């Protein structure tokens, strides 16, 4: 639960002068800290993977519950995936690592926490196709638009999302961006992009390299 979403601009604490970022009001969650809201889980699942699933098995979207997207919706989400996370010289795009199927798995989930996102995603996808002819009379769908126009529409949505992440259709783009980017950064390929180099056994841990300590003006640890 995030109580800070709608609060007015915060005041400066008594003893410290804080350097505020203008306009920023989003809060950060400390993932890994015991910050989990018990209230958020108080829902009864339909048919999920159960309370004692096989942890070691590797799962594919569609394996545990049926997926939702039609072929056209799937193609649209693939297009959006690659606008949100395009390929570059060193890393693949989101669709190249199957993130569109993760988005489908998410909105098809029997659990309320994910399933509540279903309507917003489906509504937003339909809206994008409805928008298309207004930008190009020959385009019946978002996918049929030229790449520049597609990018322009997404840029507008991104600005709307930054201004108010709860108001539609900015809210749709905020959610989709989170799912696509989150889905991407949790793959081994996406972890490389952020620069996560762990999850590998090392008998020795020597602390950060000297280059890092130098940047911070810190002396080496004993």
């Amino acid at each position, binding site marked *: 639960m995030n109580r*800070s979403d709608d609060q007015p601009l915060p005041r*400066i604490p008594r*003893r*410290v002068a804080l350097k505020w*970022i203008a306009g*920023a009001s*989003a809060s*950060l969650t*400390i993932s*890994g*800290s*015991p*910050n*989990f*809201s018990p209230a*958020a*889980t*108080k829902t009864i*699942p339909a048919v*999920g*993977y159960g309370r*004692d*699933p096989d*942890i*070691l098995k590797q799962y594919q979207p569609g394996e545990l519950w049926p997926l939702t997207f039609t072929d056209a919706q799937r193609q649209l989400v693939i297009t959006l995936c690659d*606008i949100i*996370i395009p390929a570059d010289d060193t890393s693949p795009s989101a669709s190249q*690592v199957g993130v569109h199927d*993760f988005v489908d798995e*998410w909105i098809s989930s029997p*659990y*309320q*926490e994910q399933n509540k996102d279903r309507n917003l995603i489906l509504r937003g996808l339909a809206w994008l196709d409805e928008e298309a002819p207004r930008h190009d009379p020959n385009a019946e769908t978002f996918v049929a638009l030229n790449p520049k126009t597609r990018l322009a529409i*997404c840029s507008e949505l*991104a*600005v709307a999302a*930054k201004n108010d*992440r709860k108001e539609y259709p900015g809210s749709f*783009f*905020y959610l989709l*961006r*989170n799912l696509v*980017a*989150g889905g991407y*950064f*949790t793959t*081994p390929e996406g972890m490389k992009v*952020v*620069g996560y*180099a*762990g*999850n*590998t056994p090392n*008998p020795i*841990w020597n*602390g950060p390299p000297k280059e*890092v300590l130098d*940047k*911070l003006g810190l002396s080496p*640890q004993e």
Partner: protein
Amino acid sequence: MPVISPKETQSTYDAVIVGSGAAGGQVAYTLAMNGVKVLVLEAGRMFDPVRETAMFHTPNMAPLRAAATPDKQYGFYDASIQSGWTIPGEPYTNAGKEELRQFAWWRQRMMGGRTNHWGRVSLRNGPYDFKTRTRQGVGFDWPISYDDLAPWYDKAEMLAGIFGANEGLENSPDSSPGVLLPPPKMRAGELLAKDRAQKKLGISFVPVHRAVLTAPQDADRIPKKIHPGNKKAQRILADNMRTRSPCFHATDCHRGCSIKAAFDSTTVLLNPALESGNLDILPNAMARQVTVDKSGKASGVTYVDKVDNTEHHVAARVVVLGAGSQESVRLLLNSKSNRFPDGLGNDHGLVGKYITDSVSSSFSAQIPALENMPVYNEDGVVGQQAYAPFWRCKDLQNGNLDFPGGYKLLTVAGRKMPSLNTAKQFDPVSESEGIPFGKQLKEDARRYYGSFQGIGAQGAMDANDDCYAELDPDTVDQWGIPVLRFHWKFSDNDLKQVAHQQESIAAILDAMGARFTRAPKIDNPEEAIKQGGAIIHEVGGAIMGETPDASVTNQWGQVWKVPNLAVADGAIFPNTADKNPTLTILALAMRTADHLVDELKKGNL
């Protein structure tokens, strides 16, 4: 003696223990190693951390990128199975309606209990924490002092394997020489916090203590110290220590540890206890009631076999409760008889009273100095490595603060494995016009990843009259066992402490050069304080004390009128210190078990 079914139980045991976590596991270990015939009842199934832990799985291998669901409430790869804030068929209720008047109860139904779901932070209570009534005029004094418990802290630490450093700090005691394993090197964010907090604020960040092996345990030396004169126990313990590998600096301890570097009850306590031949373990056994004989002594435990919903009774000379503090409270209250119509130990209506938890809040910011770092592996021992013990003990004692209990600060930093939420972090700091996507998002990810610093505070809570549990007259679980109804209200002292926590964390982040994206909740601590139970540090409800009229048990957890019934878990804590409770549970449980061994030998039980 092995893992058994109800048909295979002995006709009587020296001791039956309810629960297999830190308390139950520790008592089972100490009793079994000393030749006492023990049965452990565990409400969940057997669990093998070696075979059932997904050590290196990445989130894309799991359903929903391993996100939390009602089935796996801390995420898919968390070790918890059939556990959670809610468990189907096993309700609990709250008298209060508002969120802050409600208590959230994490229950672990699996072998090893809540030691499977644990950050492994293992701190000793300090001398002041045992005497809050005398020193601060709040809560209750413990019937023992720090010096009484210190020898068992040493033994519990050597047995579990705890890393940390002796810093000579006020009210954060050192261990005896040779007890602690070396602490890991700090990460960049931890070093920065340590340096800036010390220079600008005089606050010391030091290595935290955690139950994770950073070096092999000394299997030649330690078993002799823990089991002097007991060759068999020494051999079994030495053999078990040699099966444990030091941490290989990867994968979160909350997943479980298949290389046995991290402590859990099954790995460190139950396995060697089974090896002694003196322990039976009965899984899927939900305890209903402690029975008493005509003389008023505990005679055994009635339980439901969850496999076929049949009820059974097992007899024992001694009954020990280690079911998790509030589950032990529930058992005491449900153990009604003609002689004890209000439940066991409840002659003065004290069972269920004085529940406490860590008073907790957190705050975070982005640290520009940590941007654009070169790529390197910063997993370390995965999880907490540094903390700031409470640095104003003198001010507390002199009344210079407007709250009576201290708190510690734990850093949450580093280039950790990305999660579904990683991208959202970049929004408030990105220079893009809209929320970042496309090429910009990848650039932001490379620049900002690892530059976010969170600090969590966990503080002391003194017993108050508003935090208690009772039996709900209207609700039973799926086996017809009455359930607990909680009452909860943080005191003004707790809220003042949280305001101070928020201010301190903001000052430290500021000293690190933070860019803040929201405000600390100094003037509205009720919005920052974590719900009661949310930190899973709840203790109390059957507090120990000096006298039968003011407490439920004596200093060994023995229920005053029923000395062959002992409570071994956190239920006997008279208060919560600004330290995590598990290490103190282990040390007290070992002390209680040693006392029970003596008393059994003397024929007193």
